[in-house]
Structure formats: structure tokens, C-alpha cells
């Protein structure tokens, strides 16, 4: 309901239109009306009632527009609230639990999720034409990226197994493809816990813990803004490595991986791109070191405490 008020209590006349009673101000006035206020002073006060009502009609028309705008803004605000509510905050890194290394009776499985094929990513080339232009400009590099070997990464699972075995851990290889995205979701566990339920591996393989290497991006990347390259390509690998308690789905170790490396010297050396290829294998080695070193370095501490 709209209230139209003619207030003569101040130095100037005020004709205000407000919602009632929500924005009704103190002393029964429209002082706090946030939407719309039509103000006239003594000089601009219409000389007769007809013109005053015309003026108020204009005011009401403006009020309608203002209200429509407010409704739109409220709608956008509500949508943003909904969307941000849906976004899950990323899992922060979790240091390797030292108890894991000292508990020698734990049975640990080592698994690797299905690895994507190496390729060239062109982030920032978003429109269809941009993608076509960027892909055409980098076709040789893209073809080369597809020929890169992932054998080094495939061996990482066996290397992790060997490192843990050296420390006297009861460890087995889980050869089944993990298909993490097809595992059932966990509910309400929050930060520090997996979003998927890995407990089925406990029964299937008789495990207490599962160490997972999950690679979700590998190859080269070159940033774009629409049609324009924003820098030289880089070798890249991304994913996670984590150790999970299969009873509680709690992370005992969580290592996010997002590694990049440019070339030493020239990068544009088709068709074998030796500089970038070298960087690619250096990135894989860096990933290997980051996964193996926490397991390796802490081993002597575990031996001492035992």
C-alpha cells in the first residue's frame, strides 16, 4: 500500500511516497524512505492542485520504475546468494599425519585414478571463433602435446608402493580404476573429509587407508584473452594426491597439485618443441618429488620413534 504524505513541518514541502509500514519513519513521517522522495520547495511548489497531482503522478511513475529496479536487484542478489551457497570451498592442504607412519599394522592401498591424455589447453579463448583461431595458431604444439608420454606418471604408483614397502608398511597396489566421480557422495562431513565415500575399498581389499593419486590435467597450457595469446606456453600438470582413512573418509594427507613451468630459452621450436618437452618432463619430476618426499623424508623419524 502506498501512502502519499504532504508534510509542512519543515522548511520545505515534502511529498513522499513510501511503503507502509516498513519504511515509515519516526514521528509518522517518511524520513527514512529509501526508495523515492519527491521534493518541492516554495519556489517550485505548483500553483494549483491539478498541477500538484500531475507532479505527484510523475512521481508515482518514477516510483514504479524505481521499484522495478529494486526488485531486479533483489532478484540478482538472491541468485548470487544461492550460487555462492552452492560453491564448495576448496579443500586446503593437509600435512601427512605422522601417526600414519608410526602405525605399522595399517593396511594401505595405493591407487591411481584414470589419467587424462596430455593435451594443449587454451584458457581464455572462450568464444567459438576465439577457440578456432587459438587452436589454428597452436595446431603444431597441440599435435605434439598429444604425443607426450605419461609413462613416468604411471610408474609413480609403483614408486609410492616401493617407498612404503621399504618402511615396512603393509601395502598393496589397487589396480582397479577408481572412477572417483562415480563413488557415492558423503554428506555433511565438511572440511578435512572426502566428498566421496571411499569406504567400499575397505571391504573390497581389506584396507585401512587408501593413498590416491588423481591427475586431472596434463600437457601444455597457453593463456589467451579472446584471440590474443597472453604469454608463452607452459608445461603443466594438475590434480591431487591424498591419503584417506577408509573408516571415516578423513584426509590423513591432502596435497593439491597445480604445477607450471616455462622453457629455458626459446619455446617456439616446431615440430618437436624440445624446450617445452623438457619442461613437461621436469614438471612430472617435480610432481613425483612432491608426492614421494613427504613419504620418504618422514620415514627415518618413524623408525626412531618406533
Amino acid at each position, binding site marked *: 500500500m502506498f501512502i502519499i504524505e504532504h508534510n509542512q513541518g519543515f522548511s520545505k514541502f515534502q511529498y513522499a511516497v513510501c511503503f507502509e509500514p516498513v519504511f515509515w519513519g519516526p514521528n509518522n513521517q517518511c524520513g527514512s524512505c529509501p526508495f523515492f522522495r519527491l521534493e518541492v520547495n516554495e519556489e517550485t511548489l505548483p500553483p494549483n492542485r491539478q498541477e500538484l497531482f500531475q507532479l505527484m503522478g510523475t512521481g508515482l511513475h518514477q516510483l514504479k520504475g524505481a521499484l522495478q529496479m529494486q526488485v531486479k536487484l533483489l532478484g540478482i542478489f538472491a541468485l548470487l546468494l544461492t550460487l555462492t551457497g552452492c560453491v564448495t570451498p576448496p579443500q586446503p592442504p593437509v600435512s601427512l599425519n605422522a601417526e600414519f607412519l608410526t602405525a605399522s599394522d595399517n593396511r594401505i592401498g595405493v591407487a591411481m585414478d584414470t589419467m587424462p591424455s596430455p593435451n594443449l589447453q587454451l*584458457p*581464455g579463448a572462450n568464444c567459438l571463433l576465439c577457440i578456432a583461431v587459438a587452436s589454428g595458431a597452436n595446431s603444431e604444439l597441440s599435435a605434439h602435446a598429444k604425443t607426450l608420454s605419461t609413462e*613416468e606418471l604411471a610408474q609413480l604408483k609403483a614408486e609410492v608402493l616401493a617407498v612404503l614397502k621399504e618402511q615396512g608398511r603393509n601395502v598393496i597396489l589397487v589396480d582397479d580404476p577408481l572412477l572417483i566421480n562415480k563413488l557415492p557422495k558423503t554428506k555433511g562431513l565438511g572440511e578435512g573429509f572426502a566428498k566421496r565415500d571411499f569406504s567400499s575399498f575397505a571391504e573390497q581389499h581389506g584396507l585401512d587407508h587408501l593413498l590416491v593419486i588423481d591427475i586431472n590435467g596434463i600437457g601444455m*597450457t597457453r*593463456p589467451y*584473452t579472446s584471440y*590474443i595469446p*597472453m*604469454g*608463452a606456453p*607452459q608445461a*603443466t600438470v594438475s590434480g591431487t594426491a591424498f591419503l584417506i582413512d577408509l573408516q571415516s573418509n578423513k584426509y590423513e594427507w591432502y596435497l593439491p597439485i*597445480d*604445477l*607450471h*613451468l*616455462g622453457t*629455458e630459452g626459446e619455446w617456439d621450436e616446431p615440430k*618437436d618443441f*624440445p*624446450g617445452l*618437452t*623438457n619442461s613437461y*618432463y*621436469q*614438471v*612430472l*619430476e*617435480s610432481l613425483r618429488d612432491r608426492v614421494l618426499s613427504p613419504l620418504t623424508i618422514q620415514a627415518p623419524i618413524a623408525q626412531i620413534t618406533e
Partner: protein
Amino acid sequence: MKIILIGSLLVMLGACATQEQTAVAQQKDAPVPLAPLDVIDGQYWVDLPGQDGLTFYGQQLSSEVSSNGAGVMYPGGDMASFLVSIALHAAIQTSVTEAKEQTQRDAANLILEPYRELINQTSLADLMLSSEETVDTDNGQAYTVGLASQPLAADGWHTVVDPVFIMSRSSDSITIKSKVSILDGRIELTEEDLESDFSQTIFFQSLPIYESEKWLRDDGEYFRMVTSDLLRSSVDLAIQHFAGLSPPQASISSTIRYLNNGEKKVERGYLIGQTCTHIIFESLRGDIKSVPRLDWAGNHGCAAVLESS
């Protein structure tokens, strides 16, 4: 009439004689194929043109693996301002990059300060043996290496060496980067020949030391010994590669891990061979590298070999 006939006969005979002479001249200019020089059991004359002193640099640090990608956001209110901002960024970036590279070079060369006098006192020719030396390879073959004299002897392979030395950032080792070109010494050379014949860049890195003062001890004796050894080793590696005396390199590339500046360094390449101290491989860019093994210090068999040598 008779006179005219005799005159024309003489002209014809003269023309024929000239043609014959031309044919003879062509035969004289035609290249006579030389018997190929022996590559194995051959004589290699090392030539160090245009260098008296040592060219020395400090090692520049290579970029490290980072956890975030590179990218730049440009203001893009309209196409014109967007393109202007890119052009401006490119111009600024070029000068910034150049300045940054120069700063990095200067910073890298600071490591040479304690050795500057020693470097200036050392002559490149002194690092090569002036007398000829016969080198026996592991597979029972041999060849002879000597420092080339002026004028160049024409009885062997003209081995042109262009070396640069690089002191590691922690002063623990020296690497030589030698561009070695090997040409038939019997043929007078042009600049084009140097480009078109056998040419190979060799990197040879010395074993690390744990006290950098060792380079300066005994008036730089160890420094001279190592740099001399690096120069000769790089030449040997090039000759052996040229003569086919190196072991066949692996057909598939692999990840090579070695010691550099006190840390593990990783490079992709084709493995050629290993000694107890060094790994030899061909890099993806085609350079041949001989670098210290990661485990050389803990290799007990290796320690025994080093002690006996």
C-alpha cells in the same frame, strides 16, 4: 683467292687449337677426389681460433616449477583501448625483460670475482697439451690429438673448438660449453664450410667440490687442472661422437637426473653411456652432455677408481 683460303684455314685451325686448350684447362680445374681421412686412428689438430684467455660466465639460475600459471589481464572497455594496452604492455615487457636478463647476468657473474685474477692469468692454449697425445678408447680404438700449429698441418682433421666456461652458482663445479667443428684439414676452409660440416656443442661438467677455496689453492693449480681436463674431455667427446666411437645412444628418450649446483637437475635426453662419475646423453636440442651422476659420491666402486687414477 689462295691467300683468303689459307687465311681461313689458319683461322679454323687456330679456333680448334683454342678449343683443345680450353678442354685441357677444364680437366686441370676439376676436383680430384681425395682419399678419405681416417676417422678412427686419425690425427686431430685442435685449433682455438680467436681466443687467448678464458671466456668465463657465472651460472644463471633456471626458472623453477611454480604453482600458478602466467597470465595478464588487460583493460578491455573497447577494442582500441584493449589493443593499445597490449601494445603498451609488450613494449614495457620487452624492456623489463632485457633489463631483468642483464641484472641476472650481472648477478650471476658476481660469483667470478674471487677467481677473476686467476682467469685472466690462464691462457686457453696452455690448457691443451702442446705435444701430441694418443687417446685409447674403451672399445680398443685409438686416435691422436694435438694442438694445431700455424700454418695448419694438412695431414689430419682440423678440429675447431670454441669453448666457454661456466662457474656454478655455488662455486662447486665448472662446466665447459664447447662448440666443436671437425673438418678435413687438407681442404682450405671458408666460413660456409664451418657451418655445413660436423659441428657439435658439448657440455662437460666437473665433479663438485665442497670447499670453493680449493680453486685458488697452490696458485690455482686445481683450477687449471680442472679447466684443462674439461677442455680436453669436451674435445674427446666430440671426436668420439664424430668418429663413431661413442656407444650407440638409446633410441627412446628418458628422464636423466643429475647433480647440478648442489641439487638434483632433471633433463630429458637420449642416454649414451655412464661412467662411474658421469652420465653422458644427448639432449632434446641435440647437444651432448656429460654431467655428474646423482650418486657419484656414494658410489664406492667409483671412489676406488678415482683414488687409483
